């Protein structure tokens, strides 16, 4: 791990400054540098790679490892809630906070949230971009059309799949949207648990298919084939077989000679010009604690939806927040509404020898306004992997100790015998679900922490009620002796965080315009999932990469962003 500057260290003047090196920031950096822009990327977290800017692929190494303690318990990639807590309340008009601690924290390091992802990359469906029109009758919700269509995004989907190396099977998904190119590689080795679940799904008339994912099923782009080490979701990849944005998109930018990356450089304030209509610089805390101001012609927020909103609010003390003439800044926060269908089977599933998920079902994504097929989401077929978390379930949650605890660990009913269905369902946007600044709780730098106000809408609760029995049916058909639903609602456990700076054509209802630029600020853009007006029911990473590539393309070729791909 090193705080050394990466990329072109001689650059001193920048066209674009990107705050955050995660999925959106890396995508934007790749497009901008490929089109002649000099880019400075400031990343608040550490760099766990070595040689990320080295032209020799063999020199790119990492300290990510098959280490559950380091990766899942000791905050190697995640922010530490002891000094960087967040707060939560379930109603934005009630008490200051209900919970203080780890609330929807994403990895905070070079590569961002995608470091922990197993990079499942389904595309959204064409209707996902039109739900404002289609679901306008849903009361107390704030569905909105996207300012772009599926067809406008399709070239960027193709670019993203090619750059990150997405595997899949064309035509296997019965709901597959139009594709201009096939997947760049076939699927990897299927996991036994997912095959069992796929059999169960087929017995119920459903079509389970290999999950599209940016994990190499053969050597690709100077990265090796995945060897199914079993430490995938929640873990950084030790071999770079995962096409994480850091080793695909960000590395591409760093090798261009037009990009400089500064890890452990935390932006704490945007400064505005005298008129307030543009950003004049950013104030950042350096690895040694000193403060420094960085400048560029244009600025891109790519620090994750919660942190983007927080930064706009912190930068306007006593005011409504930068770019908030609409009053929408921080609002319409969404998570995918996850429902876990848990099955326990007699035999061992050895998920520890695989990715966490290898197959999917899309029939439960549903159809807008069809009461017989309400909008749910894609179903992930897989299981959990590692024993420390499992042991806490027995030892602490259930209070087991002694011979019984040891027997449970050996038998592993809640790990090695589990088959799990996870529905990533549409989360109805609501203005009251939002990020603001906690009035009392501070982080280690003395800055107000983000406060999440969030509760579910009957829209997604109804979908859960509708689909839960069907999940149990699949589990039983797959051979589960015990099957139950494990809802997780408060606070939401999802790390798919979307909204807060939604883009749209109406400046009264959105924070950014269709190009990702703030309506109120001439040179400030957003490039991450904060832009999403609706959540869809599909994993968001590929759409984040694609939307942010389009935002960057539009910065270079206004009105013709696809030219940036040529």
């Amino acid at each position: 791990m090193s705080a050394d500057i990466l990329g072109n260290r001689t650059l001193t003047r920048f066209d674009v400054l990107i705050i955050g090196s995660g999925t959106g920031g890396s995508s934007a950096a790749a497009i901008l540098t490929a089109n002649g822009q000099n880019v400075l990327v400031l990343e608040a977290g550490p760099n766990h790679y070595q040689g990320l800017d080295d032209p020799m692929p063999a020199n790119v190494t990492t300290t990510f490892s098959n280490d559950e303690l380091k990766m899942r318990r000791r905050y190697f990639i995640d922010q530490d809630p002891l000094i960087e807590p967040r707060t939560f309340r379930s109603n934005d008009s009630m008490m200051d906070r209900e919970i203080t601690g780890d609330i929807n924290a994403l990895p905070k390091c070079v590569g961002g949230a995608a470091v922990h992802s197993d990079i499942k990359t389904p595309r959204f469906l064409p209707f996902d971009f039109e739900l404002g029109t289609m679901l306008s009758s849903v009361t107390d919700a704030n569905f909105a059309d996207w300012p772009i269509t599926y067809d406008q995004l399709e070239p960027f989907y193709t670019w993203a799949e090619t750059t990150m190396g997405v595997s899949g099977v064309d035509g296997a998904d019965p709901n597959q949207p139009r594709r201009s190119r096939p997947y760049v590689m076939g699927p990897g080795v299927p996991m036994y648990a997912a095959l069992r679940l796929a059999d169960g799904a087929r017995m119920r008339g459903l079509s389970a298919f290999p999950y599209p994912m940016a994990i190499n099923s053969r050597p690709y782009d100077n990265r090796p084939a995945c060897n199914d080490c079993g430490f995938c979701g929640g873990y950084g990849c030790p071999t770079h077989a995962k096409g994480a944005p850091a080793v695909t998109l960000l590395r591409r930018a760093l090798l261009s000679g037009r990009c400089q990356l500064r890890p452990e450089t935390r932006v704490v304030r945007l400064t505005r010009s005298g008129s307030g209509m543009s950003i004049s610089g950013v104030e950042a805390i350096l690895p040694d604690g000193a403060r420094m101001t960085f400048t560029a012609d244009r600025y891109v927020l790519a620090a994750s939806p919660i942190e983007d909103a927080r930064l706009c609010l912190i930068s306007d003390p006593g005011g409504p927040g930068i770019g908030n003439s609409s009053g929408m800044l921080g609002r319409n926060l969404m998570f995918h509404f996850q429902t876990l269908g848990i099955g326990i089977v007699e035999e061992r599933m050895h998920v520890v020898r695989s990715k966490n998920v290898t197959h999917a079902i899309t029939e439960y994504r549903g159809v807008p306004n069809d009461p017989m097929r309400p909008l749910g989401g894609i179903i992930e077929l897989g299981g959990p992997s590692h024993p420390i978390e499992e042991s806490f379930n027995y030892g602490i949650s259930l209070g087991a100790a002694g011979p019984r605890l040891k027997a449970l660990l050996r038998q592993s009913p809640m790990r090695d015998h589990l088959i799990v269905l996870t529905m990533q369902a549409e989360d109805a946007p609501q203005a009251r679900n939002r990020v603001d600044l906690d009035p009392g709780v501070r982080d280690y730098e003395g800055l107000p922490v983000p406060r999440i106000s969030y509760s579910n809408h009957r829209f997604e609760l109804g979908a859960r009620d509708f689909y839960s029995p069907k999940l149990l049916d699949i589990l039983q058909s797959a051979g589960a002796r015990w099957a139950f639903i494990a809802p997780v609602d408060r606070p939401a456990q999802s790390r798919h965080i979307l909204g807060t700076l939604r883009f749209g054509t109406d400046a009264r209802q959105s924070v950014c315009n269709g190009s990702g630029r703030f309506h109120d600020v001439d040179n400030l853009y957003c490039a991450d999932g904060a832009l999403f007006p609706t959540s869809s029911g599909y994993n968001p990473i590929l759409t984040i990469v694609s939307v942010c590539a389009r935002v960057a393309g539009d910065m270079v070729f206004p009105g013709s962003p696809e030219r940036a791909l040529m």
Partner: protein
Amino acid sequence: MPPPITRRVFLRVVGTTTVAAACSNPNPTPDAALDASDGMATDAVDAVARDVVLPDCGQPFCSAEERNALAAIADYILPPDATPGGAGLGAVEYVEGLLTAFDVTPPRIWAGGPFSGRQPFANADGTVGTRTPVNSFARWLPLTRTAERGWRLRIYGSAGVMGGGPNDMLLGPTEGLRALMRRALMAILNAQPGPWETATREQMTALFNGLPTDVQKALKELVLEAALAPPEYGGNRNGAGWSTINYPGDTQPLGFSLWDETMNRYRERLDAPVSTADRTPDPAPLDAETRRFLNTLTNILGGRVAT
């Protein structure tokens, strides 16, 4: 993200004393005791032991008396049988290693990576190779300024770091692990029923259940981490924690699906298949008590139990 059954999720799922009681049995049935005595894989233990460099624990945190007390508690949580208990797995060394993490530079918080050297590289033809990487787990990684601040606060508490915690005034000071462990050891020694060697399980249960709830939780977390974390952290001695539960531990750079460059296809390991069922018998099938627990859990949650 995959669908981890996190403890918070699990707590919501099983937030009932009925289920907890069904699981937590201080007087195991003969079935459970019998079950707890098998499942050892000595070959795996030997393989894990190779190249492991245990941490230098520096100045010990505990006195000899305190170490004995901690060892007794570790063995209460995870008792020895045909396989080591919590103490035999190195729980005391693990705990002391963490509590004195900052006695060495870099501190003993994050083991290095990417590979431990316990597994070989695959050959180009998709077979298991013989060449192994160096053990980079054995080197501690430096902390960032931010991470050091967090870990010093976690270990030393608000009273032990300059400026305290960020929210001491609002939420109260943070008690560090060292202070918590001092409190725990004092309570354990005050309640010691007699020589640890002769204490009965009933006496130990009474002692443990009499400890403050936060102390019980911390002790269990630390002992379980010690048992199941990579051996470089000081516990899981010789990988015996992993082999006891038939868990492979870290598997890179070999993994389980080996790419055959000569044929452009994958080969699965016959001894550990990915896409098919295991060919070997289950070393620890679900016993009657576990089945009763799962029945109770499923019924409480409104789930379905197949007949």
